[in-house]
């Protein structure tokens, strides 16, 4: 193990800000559930009524977990946060392990280090310990934050340490994946698939096939029943499974060469297909996975919102504050809720639009754009190919959101007419979403170094939407978010004016970005 300690220290140093961000995210995920539930209901009777309606919503249960003690704050926190918390811990573990093992080997830096006198297992062990410590930090902070809320200490600890154990399990599977695959991308793919499977097994299990939930580590975590009769033994299952995965990873490591994986990379076509032609063909090829992924992601999110159906009234409770939040502009509660849901889905779609507009930046910083621009392909055309994919992809992602929301609503209410009226308004946010991606293009056009600032307008839009009135942000600041200028359809009537104005603005900003790109140095 020579060198493992040195590696560990370096990793912790390198990751300290990233770890802090994950920890803050996880704590917010749990803590904010407590806060939001607490404010929603005025009386316990009201809370009981809301809980009763949630308990029978299969879509909710599939999304979150088994419904237990939903009429208590602790029960709500457990229900709303635990499955997603497990995924968050899993993702963090996967990135930590991937970045220090498979990615290092892939880049060849690892080989450089192995030339020095260090133990064979040192980098892997240090990565493992880093991930274990990170998950411990996550769990302890979550437990402490809930205890300080105040919620019961033992149950808070159960919920927090269960999260740690889940993270440890996914650390183990990520470490196994790092031995099997030869590239970081496929390692993330494999680890992600394990998490997806764990989540899906418990979703189906919780709806009505309890045996399946017992096949899922997330199911074990939720079977610890924090705040509804805490028991510790399912945590032991997680611990044993995590240890088994780690042992398996070390055994696999002994069977492979450094730099390679046990699963050989699959060969691809020896010739390019017809579609791989010109800037548009290439841009589509590079971004199609992300377009499809995001479209499916918002489709399922929309489905989840839509599946709430007309139960909105029961869920949000009778308190004036919550009624105000959703009943915008005097319209009914259902319309108000779906107007907000449409806006949230549109903000999600911005995630695709901005990252897609930044894709050319990756191409440039990874040094691939020069090979292309040294051919007869003009700069303008290269960027235009990506722009077309971004715009068309944004339309596809918004359509996915609208279809999901409508289908979810139609499924529980059998009322497709209303479903269309409630979901179609997602599409009216197209110019606002495109404006954010156009700003990203403009920043990239000016310089790839400043391009990541393009995420700031999205952060602003999210903050304004969720906290604008709460924090009493000045009006001019709120007006900077393009979403503030569009009507909250269906709670309000659609207005052409701001729609067209934003569309024109987005087109001009995008054009400026294209022009700036043609005038600057590459690389």
């Amino acid at each position, binding site marked *: 193990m020579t060198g493992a300690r040195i590696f560990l220290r370096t990793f912790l140093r390198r990751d300290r800000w990233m770890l802090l961000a994950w920890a803050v995210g996880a704590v917010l995920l749990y803590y904010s559930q407590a806060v939001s539930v607490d404010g929603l209901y005025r009386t316990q009777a009201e809370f009981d009524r809301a809980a009763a309606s949630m308990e029978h919503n299969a879509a909710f249960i599939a999304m979150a977990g088994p419904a237990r003690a939903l009429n208590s704050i602790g029960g709500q926190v457990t229900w709303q946060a635990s499955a997603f918390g497990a995924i968050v811990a899993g993702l963090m573990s996967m990135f930590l392990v991937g970045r220090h093992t498979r990615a290092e080997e892939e880049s060849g830096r690892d080989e450089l280090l192995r030339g020095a006198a260090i133990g064979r297992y040192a980098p892997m062990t240090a990565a493992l310990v880093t991930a274990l410590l990170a998950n411990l930090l996550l769990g302890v902070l979550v437990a402490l934050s809930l205890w300080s809320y105040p919620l019961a200490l033992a149950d808070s600890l159960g919920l927090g340490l269960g999260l740690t154990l889940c993270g440890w399990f996914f650390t183990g599977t990520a470490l196994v994946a790092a031995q099997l695959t030869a590239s970081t991308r496929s390692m993330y793919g494999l680890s992600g698939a394990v998490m997806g499977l764990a989540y899906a097994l418990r979703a189906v299990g919780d709806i009505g096939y309890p045996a399946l939930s017992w096949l899922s580590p997330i199911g074990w975590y939720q079977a610890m029943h924090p705040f509804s009769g805490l028991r510790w033994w399912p945590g032991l299952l997680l611990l044993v499974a995590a240890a088994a995965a780690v042992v398996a990873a070390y055994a696999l490591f002994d069977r492979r060469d450094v730099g390679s994986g046990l699963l050989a990379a699959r060969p*691809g076509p020896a010739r390019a297909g017809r579609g791989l*032609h010109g800037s548009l063909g290439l841009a589509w090829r590079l971004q199609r996975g992300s377009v499809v992924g995001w479209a499916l992601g918002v489709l399922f999110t929309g489905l989840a919102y839509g599946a709430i159906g007309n139960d909105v009234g029961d869920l949000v409770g009778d308190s004036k504050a919550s009624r105000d939040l959703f009943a915008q502009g005097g319209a009914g509660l259902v319309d108000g809720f779906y107007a907000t849901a449409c806006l949230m889905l549109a903000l999600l779609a911005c995630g695709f639009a901005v990252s897609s507009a930044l894709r050319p930046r990756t191409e440039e910083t990874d040094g691939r754009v020069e*090979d292309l621009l040294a051919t*007869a*392909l003009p700069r303008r055309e290269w960027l235009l190919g990506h722009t077309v994919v971004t715009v068309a992809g944004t339309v596809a992602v918004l359509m996915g959101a609208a279809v999901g929301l409508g289908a979810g609503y139609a499924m529980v209410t059998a009322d497709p007419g209303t479903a269309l009226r409630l979901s179609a308004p997602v599409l009216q946010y197209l110019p606002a979403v495109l404006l954010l991606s156009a700003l990203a293009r403009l920043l990239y056009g000016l310089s790839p170094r400043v391009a990541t600032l393009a995420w700031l307008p999205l952060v602003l839009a999210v903050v304004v939407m969720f906290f604008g009135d709460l924090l009493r942000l000045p009006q001019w600041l709120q007006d900077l978010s393009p979403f503030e200028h569009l009507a909250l359809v269906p709670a309000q009537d659609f207005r052409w004016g701001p729609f067209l104005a934003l569309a024109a603005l987005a087109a001009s900003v995008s054009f400026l970005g294209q022009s700036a790109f043609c005038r600057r140095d590459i690389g």
Partner: protein
Amino acid sequence: MTGVAHPIEISGLVKDFGNTRALDGLDLTVEQGQIHGFLGPNGSGKSTTIRVLLGMLRADAGEVRLFGEDPWREAAALHRRLAYVPGDVNLWPNLTGGEVIDLLGRLRGGIDEGRRAELVERFELDPTKKGRSYSKGNRQKVALVAALASDVELLVLDEPTSGLDPIMESVFQEYVDAFRDSGHTVLLSSHILAEVEELCDRVSIIRAGRTVETGTLGDLRHLTRTSVRAELEQPPEGLELLPGIHDLEVDGTRTRFEVDTAELDDALAVLLRFGLRSLTSQPPTLEELFLRHYGDEVPSEADDEVLGRR
């Protein structure tokens, strides 16, 4: 053919990155139908020059002409006539090598199918691997096959063989040679001196963003020293008075010295006067030639020491 005698003409090129001056009045002229070596120490500005030449970077001052036109304004049209291979080839992780070759060929406006197949075979390239699973040398082969299989008049190569093994290196040389023999032009930046010696008709050496020497290898050799050992019938006299003599040692009838190659003729004439029994003269190695231009000082030690210092 185009009728431009100098496909590449650069004079007084200046390029700044913020406060650092990467190119400081660089000159470079490449003759039609020749392989032009482009040499210089790390960070001297070779890649920067090539990127200006390809219209990636805008020149801060000076004249740059590619096929007689401005590469910044006419980039795409001019690129139809050339192929570029960088030293660091970065492929798309999820495209195969074969797909990349076809893509680049299509973007250049067509690829010679027969030559493509031949090159893939000669370079022993597996075109079905994904970009992320190629080694450095194989990534370079992908770019080389794409470049050599396309129908162009000019190859711009920036350390194209830094990852190739010796067998592949000789395949590369064969194709570049044939490309030149069919009347085309090559700009070749390289640190591999054997390759330069084998291929290049002319070379330009740059240092700190400036051209310090241009000419054929013969011309450049002329500017350095030849080392001479001789055994004579009588002890020599007057050698030290000759211009261009360095490190002279006389030991009875034996002598050794170094002489500026341009003055070699006079030195030999003196030796002949003292009756020549045996003579070994060593022309400067390429290493010496470059060290002289790369470093600040002309190295005066014996060959092996010079090599040892590299």
